[in-house]
């Protein structure tokens, strides 16, 4: 039995700010690692621990590995890298943790450490990372162009032909497996659907900025449209900048701190927090990251203050609606029969932002919605950013587990507030031949209810 080895000088490794985007575990404030007192309260909430029953696949196990790396007792090995990649980053552990461990910072730092060590680098992986994170998701116009090409491919029948002729079989195995889940691109992106300034209906009480996201913009621009309408209906003047950058969550969650910093700064340059009462996001994954700009840019002398102001202003749309006391619609969604609705909690909304009640309050406000709770509503659906690409088998296991719970409620509408979850559940339903159940963002239902109400006036 030996006491845990720790660096001799507690101050030697610590940084000025404990939470800023570090790329080495050793440079992280040691107290962030020490915060975990390994009580194990996280174990029953961790999906990967549930899958394997092995401590290294649990939050406290991973933190122990991170601490061993920080203490230089363990090198950054392939096995360590795999473990950091196996974590969903669902943050369920942060909700369960009484000690308040900042697992978000730990995981992001560990992943950045893995990337900077180069241990996982292969020419193909390096190219894919550069292409997506360093190029595509850094240039909004390029991303929209890619989206437009994909849309053309889908609407002109090429996709159908490609599939019918079984040309998909020529694709590499992983791509072939992923091909059926290619999201359906919308005809109109957000900038076509939403004017730059949407005036408040009635008295203007607030001025807010609307973030349209990347996937949300291409695949679920209707959600953005609904968000703008719902906000306007509640006295908000909505400013939707024409060109918006990726918020950088993709980068931060995948160990690319440098681009995460660049994108955060661009975002702040585009939308000056001082000019708005709130900055609205409707994608849980983005919102969770957007709220962390303060710590991401804490050591950036030019941006630290604005990043702090920014983080104070960011709201998820449901959070904001409850905060300003949204108006209960006087009508239902317009459907003849009541909707039996269940709600899947996106990890980065319930765990990342601790927002659980608000989306439910919105749903309950709609007269023809019957909300039925599903089991394990706060469990990850397996989408988890790009997890369904990096860890397909665990992702599929979680997807099926989730579908089972959703279907058990008898709901015909699954509501969720994150594009990743939306796609994952929709793809799962499609793959299991279910055509009865639809997936929808809660604000889309609220927007419908307002529209029905207006039409009746």
């Amino acid at each position, binding site marked *: *039995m*030996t*006491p*845990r*080895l*720790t*660096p001799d000088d*507690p101050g030697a490794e610590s940084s000025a700010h404990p939470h800023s985007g570090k790329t080495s575990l050793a440079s992280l404030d*040691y*107290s962030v690692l*020490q*915060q975990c*007192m*390994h*009580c*194990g*309260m996280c*174990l*029953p909430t961790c999906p990967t621990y549930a899958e394997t*029953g*092995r*401590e*290294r696949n*649990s939050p*406290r*196990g*991973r933190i*122990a*590995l991170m601490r*061993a790396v920080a203490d230089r*007792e*363990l090198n950054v*090995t392939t*096995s*360590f890298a795999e*473990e950091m990649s196996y974590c969903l980053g669902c943050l369920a552990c942060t909700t369960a*943790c*009484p*000690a*308040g461990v900042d697992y978000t910072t730990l995981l992001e730092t560990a992943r950045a450490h893995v990337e900077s060590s180069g241990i996982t680098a292969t020419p193909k992986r390096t190219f894919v990372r550069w292409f997506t994170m360093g190029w595509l998701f850094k240039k909004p116009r390029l991303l929209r162009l890619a989206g437009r090409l994909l849309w053309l491919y889908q609407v002109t029948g090429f996709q159908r032909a490609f599939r019918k002729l079984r040309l998909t079989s020529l694709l590499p195995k992983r791509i072939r497996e992923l091909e059926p889940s290619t999201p359906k691109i919308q005809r109109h992106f957000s900038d076509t659907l939403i004017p730059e300034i949407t005036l408040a209906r009635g008295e203007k009480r607030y001025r807010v900025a609307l973030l349209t996201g990347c996937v949300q913009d291409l695949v679920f621009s209707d959600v953005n449209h609904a968000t703008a309408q719902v906000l306007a209906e509640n006295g908000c003047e909505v400013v939707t900048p024409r060109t918006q950058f990726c918020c950088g969550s993709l980068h931060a969650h995948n160990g690319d701190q440098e681009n995460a910093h660049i994108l955060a700064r661009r975002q702040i340059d585009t939308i000056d927090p001082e000019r708005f009462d709130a900055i609205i996001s409707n994608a849980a994954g983005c919102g969770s990251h957007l709220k962390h700009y303060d710590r991401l840019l804490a050591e950036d002398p030019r941006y630290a203050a604005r990043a702090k102001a920014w983080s104070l202003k960011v709201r998820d749309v449901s959070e904001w609606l409850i905060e300003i006391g949204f108006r209960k619609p006087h009508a239902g969604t317009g459907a003849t029969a009541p909707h039996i609705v269940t709600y899947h909690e996106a990890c980065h909304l319930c765990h990342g932002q601790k927002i659980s009640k608000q989306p439910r309050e919105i749903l309950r406000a709609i007269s023809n919605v019957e909300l039925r709770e599903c089991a394990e509503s706060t469990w990850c659906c397996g989408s988890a950013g790009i997890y369904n690409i990096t860890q397909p088998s665990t992702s599929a296991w979680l997807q099926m587990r989730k579908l089972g719970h959703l279907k058990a409620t008898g709901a015909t509408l699954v509501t969720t507030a994150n594009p990743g979850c939306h796609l994952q559940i929709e793809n799962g339903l499609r793959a299991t031949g279910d055509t009865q159940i639809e997936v929808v963002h809660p604000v889309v239902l609220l927007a419908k209810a307002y529209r029905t109400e207006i039409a009746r006036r």
Partner: protein
Amino acid sequence: MSAELISELVALLGPARVLTKKEDLIPYGFDGTAALNQLPRAVVFPDNAAEVSALVKIARARRMPVVTRGSGTGLSGGSVPVENALVACLTGMNRIRELDTRNLTLRADAGVITQKIFETADAAGLFYPPDPGSMKISTIGGNVAENSGGLRGLKYGVTRDYVMGMEVVLADGSICWLGNKCVKDVAGYNLRDLFIGSEGTLGIVTQVLLKLLPKPAARQTLLATYASMDAAAETVSAIIAAKIIPCTLEFLDRKTVQCVEDYARVNLPLDSEAVLLIETDGHPSAVADEAQQIEQIARANGALTVRKARDAAEAAQLATARRSAFSALARRRPTTILEDVTVPRSELAKMIRAVQAIALKHSLDIAVFGHFGDGNLHPTILTDERNAAEMHRVELALKDIVDAALGLGGTITGEHGVGVAKKPFLKQQLGENSHALLKMIKQSLDPLGLLNPGKIFDFPVQENHTPKT
């Protein structure tokens, strides 16, 4: 030699159930206890008693210590490995074997999570009362090995009071059943009780037969706040004097309340010096009557506020908040050292004052919470393991706390076990002869000293002893 042993284990369990890589082992180097860490040689996951027996024999042939572990939530270092140890992790043995509603018993594998036992009984209208703070994670085998307590100890006792039988693998690999479903049974020594609380040093519990109770028809939870710890203590004495035995009688001091509220957000009052969490259960009319009496007693003894939980959900929220106290306290400082001294109920107020004096004397941040009803205190020292000077003061304070508890006729541990953390103080409590008696028992059941060595007391691994088999 070690490599051969590993290949024997792999032959027995298959490669997926034998961990030897450093990345796999590091997360098994600790349990819930602060500042203890030791890498094992390997971690294995047996599925049944036969496999446990086989692996014990393999380890024994090579004189390798075996440390049994469940979910690793222990708070005295009981499942922290020793050097070159083989860790037998029983979490894979997680089946409930039988729920016998005619005899009110439940038989389960050692690796079943305590919460699942509770829920299985509950679904059948029955009740498994022991509820250690970690019940959502802890395994029943670990509860039995540590004789865990919980929030309901005052009225319902501890794990020991609910163990009717067990399957146990001995140090030589033989498998024994101890106990049965009979309420009365005096056939031979009560060996079952010997293994309860033996912390994995005498044998490996692989299955347990538990006693269940009918589920109380009603419960009521109350929360009372006080301007002083003494007023809270007076309330507790008055409740007991009124011949009311609540199911739960917990208290939290100001620091603990602040940390718990910070985490759980259940509207705990932040401005009071002490909070009592009281639960009464039983027949609905008795519960209503007791709750009313408790409220009156609390007010008569200076309670600032008394709040009744509106419904079961709020009651459960409050209990969960209390169960998080230990971990929530970790918010204050990097290292959280949890104490477990227990004194006769009548001495509780004195003990709390002693802890407060000790905190002042050694300039330490000590929060106190615990089970007021059964005298089990959790003074929690909030410190930083990297601050050598402060850690030295922590050691002195721990010794003072133990001295104070023993001086009041108490015990060094009420529910966490001796493990490694309390080992230095055990002889002081037991005296020479009783301490020697423990070793005599160890000597007769595990002469080679291979089962969880170095826990409870030092008993060197016998290198040259010839095994019987």
